[in-house]
């Protein structure tokens, strides 16, 4: 066994003195090897699970209320129960296509602790009666691909994956698949399309609810990497220990990735449900405040597609049932912080450009509307936009998301919150995502846009009338 070199924190990760469910091995330099994994209790959760009936394991996960960490926050145990009985085969698809702007927690989980993910996959397959697992890793994550592949080889060689795992009757294969670089493939139905070898475009739900009609037309569970990484700890320590952390509705911990204008950006494993945004951004054990002690202008609470919050929402905890009504979402756990020096229209343009560029081209409103928004906004940022353009942005946005678009409350502006989610004319969330940052920016910081507009001075035209003389 290699010597245990301990880092104060792994690259991009801030450990701190908090309960660790998924990041317990991050402090070791060789955390991704099977030796380290086994030396630190690896595959104990799998052993424990295999010793129990599958339904028991499923119940355990259900009673722990492990929330999906991909964005929607749907309890994993409940999701597993949605597949029809007596249909064979059923598949597990692991969504490792983490590509939401600002999110990089799953990447660390795959790079730093691939065995934990594999163990989680195996537990999930066992509990939910899934016969094959497809591990889809984003195309750009070379190190994650390398480490997961190496770990999978080790696990196969050691008999943790494959036929009759650990001498039991349980057999499952894990197939690795690299993405080809499309954001939309993070959407579960598009990911399934991509896995099938097709162009990554979302399918409409219904009828393509993966749990009923997913990969190759079979019932399919799509779980996020972090969700599955929770399972080994949960198996070893039990659901009571799990729910003892966090709140009843948001138990356990969750990983958040903070980027932008804070003193100490990085990934943190925080206690779910109780930690507030203020704790996270200003707490000494977390980000330690805004850079240069500037004033906080705005922050994105849950990935690039989430409507923005301002200082007014800092005291909200990481609890979906509170963040939603406040006008945004927790999403993938990516917090992007903007301090008072931020050029808001430019920041919004960066995000809108991303979503317009990443539109798969399937739904008309997203394909045409996203680029349209980007082009109007570019004009405004360049200083050639007009008052009408600002209105046009909102009207194009309304073609993608009819009705009131969610936004946060703001005391200074006298705004009341419009709760999440929005209505949309597209299949998936990429279309609305192009509009979300723009809508937030215009709603909360309209004056900054107005300051960029061309000021047209109307020149009064005075008619010079010559009296008409008739028959002089």
């Amino acid at each position, binding site marked *: 066994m290699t010597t245990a070199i301990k880092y104060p924190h792994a690259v991009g990760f801030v450990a701190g003195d908090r309960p660790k469910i998924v990041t317990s091995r991050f402090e070791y330099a060789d955390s991704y090897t099977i030796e380290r994994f086994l030396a630190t209790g690896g595959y104990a959760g799998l052993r424990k699970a295999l010793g129990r009936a599958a339904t028991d394991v499923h119940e355990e996960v259900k009673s722990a209320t492990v929330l999906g960490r991909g964005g929607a926050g749907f309890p994993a145990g409940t999701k597993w129960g949605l597949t029809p009985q007596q249909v064979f085969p059923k598949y597990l698809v692991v969504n490792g296509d983490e590509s939401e702007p600002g999110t990089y927690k799953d990447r660390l989980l795959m790079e730093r602790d691939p065995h934990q993910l594999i163990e989680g996959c195996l537990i999930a397959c066992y509990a939910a009666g899934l016969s094959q697992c497809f591990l889809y890793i984003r195309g750009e994550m070379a190190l994650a691909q390398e480490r997961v592949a190496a770990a999978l080889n080790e696990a196969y060689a050691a008999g943790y994956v494959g036929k009759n795992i650990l001498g039991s009757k349980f057999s499952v294969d894990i197939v690795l698949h690299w993405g080809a670089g499309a954001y939309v493939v993070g959407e579960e139905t598009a990911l399934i399309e991509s896995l099938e070898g097709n162009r990554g475009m979302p399918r409409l739900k219904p009828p393509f609810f993966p749990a009923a009609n997913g990969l190759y037309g079979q019932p399919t569970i799509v779980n996020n990497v972090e969700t599955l990484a929770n399972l080994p700890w949960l198996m070893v320590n039990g659901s009571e220990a799990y729910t003892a952390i966090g709140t009843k509705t948001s138990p356990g911990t969750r990983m958040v990735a903070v980027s932008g204008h804070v003193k100490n950006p990085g990934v943190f494993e925080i206690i779910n449900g109780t930690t507030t945004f203020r704790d996270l951004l200003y707490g000494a054990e977390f980000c330690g405040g805004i850079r240069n002690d500037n004033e906080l202008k705005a922050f994105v609470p849950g990935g690039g597609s989430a409507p923005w919050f301002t200082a007014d929402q800092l005291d909200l905890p990481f609890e979906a049932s509170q963040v939603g009504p406040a006008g945004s979402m927790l999403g993938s756990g990516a917090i992007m912080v903007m301090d008072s020096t931020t050029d808001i229209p430019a920041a919004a343009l960066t995000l809108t450009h991303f979503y317009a560029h990443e539109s798969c081209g399937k739904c008309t*409103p997203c394909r*045409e509307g996203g680029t349209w928004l980007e082009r109007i906004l570019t004009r405004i940022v360049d200083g050639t936009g007009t008052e009408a353009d600002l209105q*046009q942005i909102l009207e194009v946005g309304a073609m993608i998301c009819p009705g009131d678009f969610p936004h946060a409350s703001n005391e200074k502006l006298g705004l009341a919150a419009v709760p999440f989610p929005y209505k949309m004319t597209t299949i998936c969330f990429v279309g609305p995502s192009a509009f979300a940052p723009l809508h937030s920016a215009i709603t909360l910081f309209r004056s900054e846009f107005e300051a960029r507009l061309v000021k047209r001075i109307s020149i009064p035209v005075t008619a010079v009338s010559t009296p008409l003389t008739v028959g002089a």
Partner: protein
Amino acid sequence: MTTVDSNTTASEPVVDPNAVSVTINGKVVAARKGEMIIAAADRTDDFIPRFCYHPRMEPVGMCRQCLVEVVGPRGPMMVVSCMTPVADGQVVNTETEGVKKAQEGVLELLLANHPLDCPVCDKGGECPLQDQAFSHGPGESRFVEEKRHYEKPIAISENVYLDRERCILCDRCTRFADEVAGDALISFTSRGNNTQVMTFPDEPFSSYFSGNTVQICPVGALTAKPYRFKARPWDIEHVESTCTTCSVGCRTVVQSSRDELVRYQGVDSQPVNWGWLCDKGRFNFESINSKDRLTTPLIKDASGNLSASSWSVAIDSVARMLRTALTVSPQSVAIIGGARGTNEDAFAWAQLANALGVDSRDSQLADGLPPQVFSLPQATIADIDTAKTIILLAPDLKEELPILYLRVRHAAEKRTGRVIEVSPRATGLAGKAWKKVHVEPGKTAAALRALATDAAFTAQIASGSVVVIVGRMNLAESEESVVHALAEVLHIAPHATVLPALRRGNVRGAITAGLTPRNGGKSTAEILEAAAAGKIECLVLLGADPLSDVPDADLARRGISGARNIIAIDTFITQSSALADIVLPAAAYGEKEGTTTNVEGRISNVAQSITPVGTSRPDWMIAVELGTATSHDLGFASYNEVHAAMISGVSEFVPAIDTHAVEHDGVIVAHPTPIALTRADGASNERNSYDYRAVVSRKLYDNAIGTAKSPSLATLAISAAVIVNPLDVPRIGAQVGESVRVTSQRATLVLPLQESVDVLRGTAWLPINLSGSDARELLDVTKDVIDLKIEKMS
């Protein structure tokens, strides 16, 4: 209540478990479970705008134009009606303010990057985007940015052009290519605002069905070369007709402008073609407009050249020839052909033959099946949809009956039935077949006999209805071998119904009308043999070209040169009509009205759209005039009279009395009492010392006159080759592409060598009637199988 009164329950109407009722805009609509809202709404007066939705393809919900409101537990929800199934008690609103705003929004977005070049666009005037922009659009656009720019139309295949600026990315063409045609050669590339339909690099969209994408394109993005800039929709005259290029009998709209055919469009006929056409059927109208069409009668002059004459002189000369021949013996007169015309044409000629006492008439060119296959229990094309098993004992449907291929492919794709392919080589349906019985020529019946002991096979046969599609899968094999194989299949599956896959346009109608040997008359092969022996005084070629169509080239040549007089009734100078003594110009498809009978015996109308070129006349009219000139009154003198005489004179045609049906989906011929086939031991067909057994078949595009005279299709025919299994190539010792010597007992040909895994080892596939050496030279219709020697040229 504990007892149930059985009388009461019996009298209650049966409740369809799949019936649901939905309310669309306040109107109650009956629908079926699984049906989409848009399909149910189409039965009301309320039109939901749509671009990507097509009733014959899987919905994708791509364009988002068909957004409607469904009232749910949490208030009205905006859904796409093309992908939302109906549910009992569902309340749908398609015309609320919210829906109107959403639909206008989507249309404005669709038009944002659309070039609006309607004045120069072929689609203008019949464009769903144009129409729906008026009916459901916002009226004006707020898009002031520069539009997307792409190179204006790029050719994605020989005949289809793509204008990516006009494209609204509805996924119809790409879905068609993948789902329906099985040629997924076009797909989306790039993404977001740069998404575009594109072919794969260096691989054109060369599909036999590419023209359908032009028809279903809801904008002018896809245009077809034969129609580009030819006409405007408001100048076009439409008549509904039936395509007679092959015997599937697809329903079409024949469109003409200024008395010239400009386009065929498929009509969605549920029992036949579902709206699809193959490119050959779609684009061969060009041949009808060809400058090479015959316009006047031609008579061979003293120097042996055909020179223009008048109808009166020509008819007199033909009558004289016939009379002279008949004085020798009625057996010395023979008629070959008739399958290219209408039922009425064939009936009139059969009546003339009867009047003249000519018993040797055959509308099949020694490449067909005995007419008794029509007396077996018959299947319809639509039976393929419900059959549990579809047995292909047929030529490659993709090459010979393309739209029938789509129907079988659909059944396999949707898993409504399993396909069993019995063939000497892998056909276009091999990839969809549940079981492939690839067997070398001459051994088919024996292989099927052996298969009767295969438990999985028999269980599959027993699982439900069976349709056998039967035809000449190999022209180097005798007609009897097919009948033997069919007898074996019907022995294993006595409940099977038979779909005789004879390929020539109206061959079934011609046979039914009487253009088939009677009273011991001769078949085509026998006629040609007799002619070669100098026993035929007068040979009538009724739209037939034995020199390019009869599989045995030598026999055809000997027959044509041996006949004393030849009278050709044709639209073009063909190889055979060029040797005729008198050529009478015939009116072609689209120039005459009538009825036709398709492969399943469906009688439907063919309509006249333009006036016949020059002085050409329908075949039936020529028969009537020849009758008069030979002092036989056939009893009819107008089209309506021929049609009426045919219905009263031929019992199979009686259902055609339903004129309305004939002019729409058609009616099935009345079937005679079914007969049974007896099994027989065929010849053992042991191999001679030659190494390869010949498999000879046709390609869709060949040198047939309708293709050769259509400029858009003429270039698509490949050149002749001998194709063997890759494992046989080293045995021959020649390189692929190199010319090799192919020898049968008849002849030796030099052909380029090609390889394909579709070909069985020890067999050689030779497509015929292509440019280059024609494999028909190798064939001998008197032989059961043809064995070949393939040698490297020294």
